[in-house]
């Protein structure tokens, strides 16, 4: 494991109450692995990433629980470094600033707002390099040109003198990636890296990220809403809904045998470019508002299963299932289902998933 997130919980205090944007989420990413966290707006995927980086604006946000363990590489440990993992949520700010950029880097959806408009891109990369690697100006500059070359920017020795507005959207995203890579991070967190880009450019950036992963062996956490991008890039997938992970498995399995009704619904509701279809399947209802998550299983108001059973009206089986998915009391088994492994490396959080009853807690 490179990074382990355990029971992460992040809240936001708003005018209308406390919103638990991320509620006890656990996942891990290995070196050289691309983990996709996929979900719709308000599901907490970006907040998860920001919490790992400790970039949650406080107030209104606060991380109320959990651990984020960054493990050292075995080789480094042998060199005399501390072998125990460090908990990114408990180290002092100073140390966290050293971790950011040097060991964990982050890139954003909107490169224009993440780049300083009055500095040349070269100057910005040089600054990042000098901050963390302590190189002198000349070496840092050479290294910046080198980085731009690596992220596929043509004529990098000229482009270093450009200002962000002189570059196209795709080029800006490449610059962002170059900045992220400037200190050879062990982990890259990419928050919707291709969402603002056109299809042809998106394909270029996806390929670039895959290449860089292969070259450097870094772990990548990909935050996205686009299942197409997930299928193209990810090794493993966590599906988030209403602040929780509802399913996690390797990419093949998520797409070929999804277990959670939400994952199934998402996959079936997608129009496909590779085949024509008559009518789209639909997940009814709205994406829930973090201030008003439904009681019981948070997906139940939109769930096919509970709706079918409720429509049946009566029947022992349906009453039993309904009670378990909808109930709010803690005395009987039921309520919000925790994530459990139903087979090797395939976790799901649904009372009705096959094998769920006998499944063990994940990790």
């Amino acid at each position, binding site marked *: 494991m490179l990074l382990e997130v355990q029971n992460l919980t992040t809240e936001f205090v708003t*005018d209308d109450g406390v919103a638990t944007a991320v509620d006890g989420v656990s996942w891990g990413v290995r070196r050289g692995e691309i983990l996709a966290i996929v979900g719709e707006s308000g599901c907490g995927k970006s907040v998860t990433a920001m919490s790992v980086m400790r970039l949650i604006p406080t107030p209104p946000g606060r991380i109320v629980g959990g651990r984020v363990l960054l493990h050292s590489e075995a080789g480094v440990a042998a060199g005399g470094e501390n072998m125990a993992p460090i908990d990114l949520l408990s180290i002092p700010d100073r140390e966290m600033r050293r971790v950011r950029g040097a060991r964990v880097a982050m890139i954003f959806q909107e490169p224009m707002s993440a780049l300083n408009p009055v500095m040349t891109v070269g100057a910005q990369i040089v600054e990042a390099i000098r901050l963390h690697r302590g190189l002198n100006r000349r070496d840092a500059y050479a290294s910046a040109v080198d980085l731009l070359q690596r992220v596929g920017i043509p004529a990098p020795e000229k482009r270093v003198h450009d200002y962000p507005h002189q570059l196209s959207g795709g080029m800006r995203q490449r610059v962002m990636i170059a900045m992220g890579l400037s200190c050879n991070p062990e982990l890259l967190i990419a928050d919707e890296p291709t969402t603002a880009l056109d299809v042809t450019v998106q394909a270029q950036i996806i390929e670039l990220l895959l290449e860089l992963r292969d070259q450097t062996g870094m772990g990548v956490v990909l935050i996205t809403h686009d299942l197409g991008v997930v299928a193209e890039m990810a090794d493993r997938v966590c599906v988030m809904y209403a602040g929780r992970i509802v399913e996690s498995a390797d990419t093949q399995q998520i797409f070929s045998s999804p277990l959670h009704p939400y994952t199934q619904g998402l996959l079936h509701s997608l129009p496909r470019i590779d085949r024509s279809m008559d009518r789209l399947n639909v997940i*009814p209802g*709205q994406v*829930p508002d973090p201030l008003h998550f439904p009681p019981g299983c948070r997906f139940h*108001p939109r769930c096919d299963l*509970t*709706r079918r059973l409720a429509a049946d009206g009566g029947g022992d089986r349906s009453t039993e299932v309904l009670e378990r998915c909808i109930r709010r009391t803690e005395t009987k088994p039921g309520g919000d289902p925790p994530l459990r492994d139903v087979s090797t490396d395939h976790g799901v959080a649904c009372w009705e998933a096959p094998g769920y009853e006998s499944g063990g807690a994940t990790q």
Partner: protein
Amino acid sequence: MVDNSATTVSCATTVSCTTAIPCTTTISYKRRVWRRFRTHRRGMFGLAMIVVLVGVAMTAPLIAGNVPILCHYQGAWQAPGVVDCLRRFPILDRVIPPSYPFSKAGFDAKEALSEDDFSLWPPVAYGPSETTRVSLAGPSKRHWLGTDEVGRDVFSRMVHGTVVSVQVGIVSMGIAGVLGIFFGAIAGYFGRWVDAVVSRVIEIVICFPDFFLILTVMVWLEPNITNVMVVIGLTRWTGIARYTRGEFLRLKEMDFVVAARANGAGAARIVLRHLLPNALAPILVTISFGVAQAILIEAGLSWLGFGVQPPAPSWGNLLRSAYDHYRDAPHLVYPPCIAIFLAVLAHNLVGDSLRDAIDPRVHATGKVKV
């Protein structure tokens, strides 16, 4: 029919109301802004002070004056203070007759009313121009803030000076607001040559340092409060116009305006239904700062002797006369100073908080120069 709507779902699941819309009464934009405004302590403090100021201005003769609020005189009940108070408003002064003989020149209510007559006096029973024999006295039970060089009660003059400041704020910014919104709106909506003409006019007007422009104009005009208000209004509209123009230019490109055009809505409908309601709140912010500026300008003009003319009281000329007698009666300086400071501060605080309430993301600290 579409069976996939949120509403159908929540009914089918037998769960309590889980629609995305909470089952409460609807909240309009105004109420949302007010809700956020209420959370700003400084803004609420400013608003409270403005309410007090306006209240004092409206009821000045009941707080300090040389006629009783209510009395029994020559066998009849009279309320000369209340009548005075009401007759200060336009229109009402035509409807309500002055209370004879209290309003007659030279009539002294204090002497005319005998001990036996019932009379209820204002807390400070001195008119703003009423002279007493004690001049430059310190604060006392009779004269709360002392008296000035000719023996007039300073508290009474302060209270009646409030009227001037409030009037200046409302009337001058009313004029500036109408002009500014009108010119800003036509420049922003029509664009092209209209915009070019209005923008040039604005540029020319703001080229002149406005205080000196007002001073110059006041040299030609008869210096009285009406002229002060009109001149401030005519010179201070540019900020509002520029702001309105900017808002209109921004809003004009919004999709809901395009939608209105696609529906065939005319210019009047687009301006009045779509653009102005959305631009109004931020314009109010600039107007709020503008009121603060206007109060300052009036005080400055009166201090220099170009504004409200003595013996009529205004904070500016009170400060002037206090300044002239600084050595003999230093206590006279503070009341007008504090009053001007608080009035300006109150409007700036309200403007700041209103801006934050409109756009909760902005945490502005500085004051906008209008």
